[in-house]
């Protein structure tokens, strides 16, 4: 894991303002798409709407029959029903087209990045080997290519030599270039991005059509969108409800004939009215908007700059019970800040601060700068000219940095490194400094020991900076029943102190990749769903095991392959937003389903009296809405049923508003809005349409 990278310090506030939808479809396009989707092959995929589709065809045929003078009902009535049934189908098609339209626009922008370019295929995997130009669509996995400044990376691959700054804005929308280099966690490059400076040698890891960009395009276009498990289960419910209502309407015909016969009447219910009743009863609202909700969920994820490899992953995000969060970048800013200078026994405070400042003046890391800032703020020490001094930069070998001024060797570093340094010069590491180091660690800080030659001067306390607002987020999550676990390489004491400060529920300290994997498996064995973020190759096994795994776009190819989402902004805090989008998608589905079923009550009161009042005049008592006539009652119900689809398209695309609340509260609120509202709304709506219609009938 890359702990000290600047990318992870994106401010939290950004999360609440995702990129706006890039473009949306124009009305003519939506209309054309809606008609194009009238093909039976498209309709067949949505069983509920297929029934409406068949109903439209049958009523149209009945209308033709009526034109010949043998209609079972007035010609105008059949015509009106047929037209509105077609509208119902078209509205459903348009809703889907609009949802897809957003994705298509995003896909078009991505596709622009996938230009046909020539790649420089190297004869040997060396920078200076000879190369020949190869068109990018002929590139295959395993080829090695050279990409130099100004070149477009021809396909996804792994940097095996060199380092370069790369413009990835085509994919991430982020204009600042990033560094890609061989080895480590920043070795993955994506096809379609542009090298700005230097050169890299890349081994190709994806064939044309299978690359990251291609998968992204297919996903946002909805081309490869399979139904998610919950969508499948919901479809089964909707099909079963449709079958029940089909049965209800089909058996009403013999019931009506029998009743008429028992009553000595001759007029029975017409097929047109039964089809109207059927269409009104089957859950067309959710049936029409179901796929739009799914596509919109994917599209909202894209707006948050997260690419999900499947709708299933988004759905799983809603179900997550445990979030594994890397400390660095998610809970804390990537950098640490100097908080205090603690003197060793018998050392003048001024001398120690002076030494610390000297050791840090040449140190350009955020930690180094924060030491200089603290020295200035707290002790009034200004920066000074360091002529004649030699800065000693941090190296992985010595694990110290500092400065040499004449014979003065000033160093700062981790306590064991400094211990070696002073003891190497036959100095002594005092007991009280050891205690100080432990005390700092137990407070959640990082101790940096400062030494001059063989003498220990004191300890600088570096503190992790917990991201602003993160504690409230965790409190929200806890209220939603989601457990947060902080993962850190720090020791237990430091980790526990920080965890308490940030308000996480649990902590995994001194974490190794194996520990992470074990932890995930343990939670899963308890029946919990686990989400995590990761970017390094060593994260790959845990990412593969987690139910929702968000890989950072800046991470390695292995991490991206193992995850089921990629965050293009490489912002680990995004995980919280991913969970929200997932929940929002499922909630929208539930709200529309409830609304759809709740609507049926009013429709019964409109259609049943209208259908049978000829056989049994007293049934007019059920016409509690006081609708104008049987004709206007049936027509109003059908029109309401069609218009409600249009009215709910914005809700399907935007999603039900999500709040971080316990389940019970969420349920009460949504039941009130979509359940109770769903019962009441059609009574008002149908009555209104009836009032508008009645002058014309």
């Amino acid at each position: 894991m890359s702990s000290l990278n600047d990318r992870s310090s994106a401010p939290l506030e950004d999360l609440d303002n995702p990129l706006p939808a890039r473009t949306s479809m124009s009305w003519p396009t939506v209309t054309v798409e809606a008609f194009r989707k009238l093909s039976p092959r498209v309709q067949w995929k949505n069983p509920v709407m297929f029934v409406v589709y068949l109903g439209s065809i049958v009523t149209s045929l009945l209308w033709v029959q009526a034109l010949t003078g043998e209609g079972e009902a007035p010609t105008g009535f059949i015509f009106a029903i047929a037209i509105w049934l077609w509208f119902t189908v078209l509205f459903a098609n348009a809703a889907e087209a609009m949802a897809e339209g957003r994705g298509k626009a995003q896909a078009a922008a991505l596709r622009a990045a996938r230009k046909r370019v020539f790649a420089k295929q190297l004869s040997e995997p060396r920078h200076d080997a000879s190369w020949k130009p190869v068109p990018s669509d002929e590139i295959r996995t395993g080829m090695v290519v050279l990409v130099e400044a100004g070149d477009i990376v021809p396909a996804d691959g792994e940097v095996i030599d060199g380092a370069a700054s790369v413009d990835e804005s085509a994919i991430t929308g982020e204009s600042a270039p990033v560094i890609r280099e061989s080895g480590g966690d920043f070795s993955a490059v994506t096809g379609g991005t542009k090298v700005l400076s230097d050169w890299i040698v890349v081994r190709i890891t994806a064939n044309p059509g299978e690359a990251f960009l291609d998968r992204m395009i297919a996903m946002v276009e909805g081309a490869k969108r399979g139904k998610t498990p919950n969508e499948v289960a919901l479809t089964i419910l909707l099909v079963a409800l449709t079958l029940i209502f089909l049965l209800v309407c089909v058996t009403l015909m013999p019931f009506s004939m029998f009743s008429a016969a028992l009553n000595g009447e001759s007029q029975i219910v017409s097929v047109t009215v039964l089809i109207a009743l059927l269409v009104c009863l089957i859950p067309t609202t959710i049936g029409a908007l179901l796929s739009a909700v799914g596509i919109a969920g994917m599209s909202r994820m894209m707006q948050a700059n997260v690419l999900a490899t499947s709708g299933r992953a988004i759905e799983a995000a809603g179900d997550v019970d445990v979030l594994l969060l890397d400390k660095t970048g998610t809970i804390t800013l990537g950098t640490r800040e100097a908080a205090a200078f603690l003197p060793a026994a018998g050392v003048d405070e001024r001398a120690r601060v002076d030494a610390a400042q000297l050791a840090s003046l040449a140190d350009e890391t955020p930690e180094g700068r924060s030491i200089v800032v603290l020295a200035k703020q707290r002790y009034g020490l200004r920066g000074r000219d360091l002529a004649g001094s030699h800065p000693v930069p941090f190296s992985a070998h010595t694990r110290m940095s500092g400065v040499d001024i004449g014979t003065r060797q000033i160093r700062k570093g981790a306590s064991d490194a400094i211990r070696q340094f002073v003891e190497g010069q036959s100095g002594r590491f005092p007991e009280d400094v050891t205690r100080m180091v432990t005390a700092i660690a137990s407070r959640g800080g990082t101790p940096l020991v400062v030494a001059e030659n063989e003498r220990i001067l004191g300890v600088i306390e570096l503190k992790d900076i917990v991201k602003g607002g993160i504690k409230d987020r965790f409190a929200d999550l806890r209220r939603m029943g989601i457990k947060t676990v902080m993962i850190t390489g720090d020791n237990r004491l430091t980790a526990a102190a920080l965890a308490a400060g940030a308000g996480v529920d649990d902590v995994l300290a001194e974490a190794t990749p194996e520990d992470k994997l074990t932890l995930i498996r343990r939670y899963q064995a308890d029946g919990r769903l686990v989400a995590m973020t990761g970017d390094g190759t060593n994260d790959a096994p845990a990412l593969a095991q987690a139910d929702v795994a968000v890989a950072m776009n800046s991470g390695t190819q292995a991490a991206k392959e193992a995850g089921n989402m990629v965050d293009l902004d490489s912002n680990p805090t995004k995980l919280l937003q991913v969970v929200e989008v997932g929940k929002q998608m499922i909630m929208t589905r539930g709200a529309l389903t409830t609304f759809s079923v709740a609507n049926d009550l009013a429709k019964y009161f409109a259609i049943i009296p209208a259908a049978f009042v000829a056989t049994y005049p007293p049934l007019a008592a059920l016409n509690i809405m006081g609708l104008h006539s049987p004709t206007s009652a049936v027509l109003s119900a059908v029109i309401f049923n069609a218009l409600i689809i249009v009215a709910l398209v914005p809700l399907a695309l935007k999603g039900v508003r999500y709040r971080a609340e316990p389940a019970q509260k969420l349920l009460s609120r949504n039941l009130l809005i979509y359940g109770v509202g769903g019962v009441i709304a059609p009574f008002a709506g149908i009555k209104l349409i009836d009032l508008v219609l009645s002058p014309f009938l």
Partner: protein
Amino acid sequence: MVNDLVQFVIVVGMATVLVAVCGAWLARVLTSPGHVLPERMTYGLMGVDPGEAMSWKRYGMALLFSNGAMMLLGYGLLRIQGLLPFDSLERAAQTADLAFNTAASFITNTNWQSYSGESSLSNFSQMAVITFLMMVSAATGVAACAGFIRGLGRKSARDIGNYWVDFTRVTYRVLMPICLVVALIYVWQGMPQTLNAEAVADTLEGPAQHLLMGPVASLEAIKHVGTNGGGFFGMNAAHPYENPTPLTNTIHMLCMLLIPSALTYCFGTMLLRRRQGWAFFAAFLVMFLGFLAVVYSAEQQGNPLLAALGVDQQDSVLQSGGNMEGKETRFGIAQTSLFVTVTTAATTGSVDAMHDSLTPLGGLVPIAQMMLNDVFGGDGVGFINLITFAILTVFLVGMMIGRTPEFLGKKIEAREMKLVMLAVLAHPFSILGFTALAVLWPGSQDSLANVGPHGFSEILYAYTSGTANNGSAFAGLNANTPFFNTTIGLAMLIGRYFTLLPMLAVAGSLAAKKTVPEGPGTLPTATPMFTILLVFVVLVVGGLTFLPALALGPIVEHLLMLAGHLF
């Protein structure tokens, strides 16, 4: 009025106390590790291994095949009744279609009777076919429910128990002891329990009067405890030998409610979710009280047309008032209304009044309760039906909390939904499908005693009663024709096995799943709110399915009555 309410409170109160007592006993029976001697002997005799852990498939197959064998046995005995000795009245064998209907009726716990008991069955048939099938069909239902509950409670398990063990234990340790006690009380109250076929009395006018009798008390006990309902006599529990006193009337009702309601407590105990068990009981009770209120108020109100003629239908010291057509004066409006509600709620089908003579709205209640089929419901199956709707409820509204739906910590996915919807669909398909077939069938109008919407109600009632495995009859319909015998017989089999087996599969599927720990983020199901939602979903789904049919039957009849037209 106050008198009536006190009666309701006493019965419902006693039933509630019995829930905990019987429920605790059921849970003990179903979870105890040891086998008692008679059980071990039975297993040995039948050659079954009581230690076998059965998957839902094996459990379901054992249920299905043992039921099939017993139905065949019943059918055979009814067909050869005329050849069997010891019947002094030498009653003839049943015809093929009638015997099929009777065997199907009793193995499915329906007890629809196309025949009149005293005139067509010998005492041997009453015992060996009727009482035997009454016992095993009730045991089958409870055993199925035991496997079902176990499936809901297990996690990552492959089996749901052992059918033979559940069946045998329920029979030996629950049904038989309860029936023995109840039968003795019945005998004390004056019910006949004899192997003599009749008592002959010389009347003052000279001719001899034949009072038919037989082992009535034993049949009555299992008839109510087993939510069966088939009477020894054609008049069923309105016959003084079947229901001699107000006390027997009350015990009948308590027996009917006993096991269906106790299973909620048994569930709560077995899963260590007591609150959840009570929540389900509350759902039962809320629906029950609502329906009781409708019948009682409709019947007590009486007939407005009679009122217009100046007939006194007021409740007073001298009379119970209301609509007394088809009711026993000794039970009055309150005991009859309560009995009507209990017998169709617990799908027993025992009647102490003629349902055909109820007011239109009063008649709507029995038919509506059977259409819902889960207001207490039959032994075992009622609880299973309620859970079917609980899963449906969880699915319909559960998504609104932003998680894929879970029930008792188990994710409800495509497979469960498929099976649940199969069970939900079978019920209306059988009722509406067969009713449609019957009204189209030539000559079915000849079986009707009434015209207008009431005639339609009679047919609708017959298939609803059959499919719901209730067995009560609206009367008025002559159902002993090959067409009605066959189709109602099929309706009973579909109504029983097409809801039981899919739900056993659901139990098997849920048993195999992991359990998601409950927390603030999961949907709470042991709350008053969920109970209300559950009741609402049951009423809405049932209402949406059957409202059009009801509109052409009881509802329009009621409206016509208000308009001054009776049928």
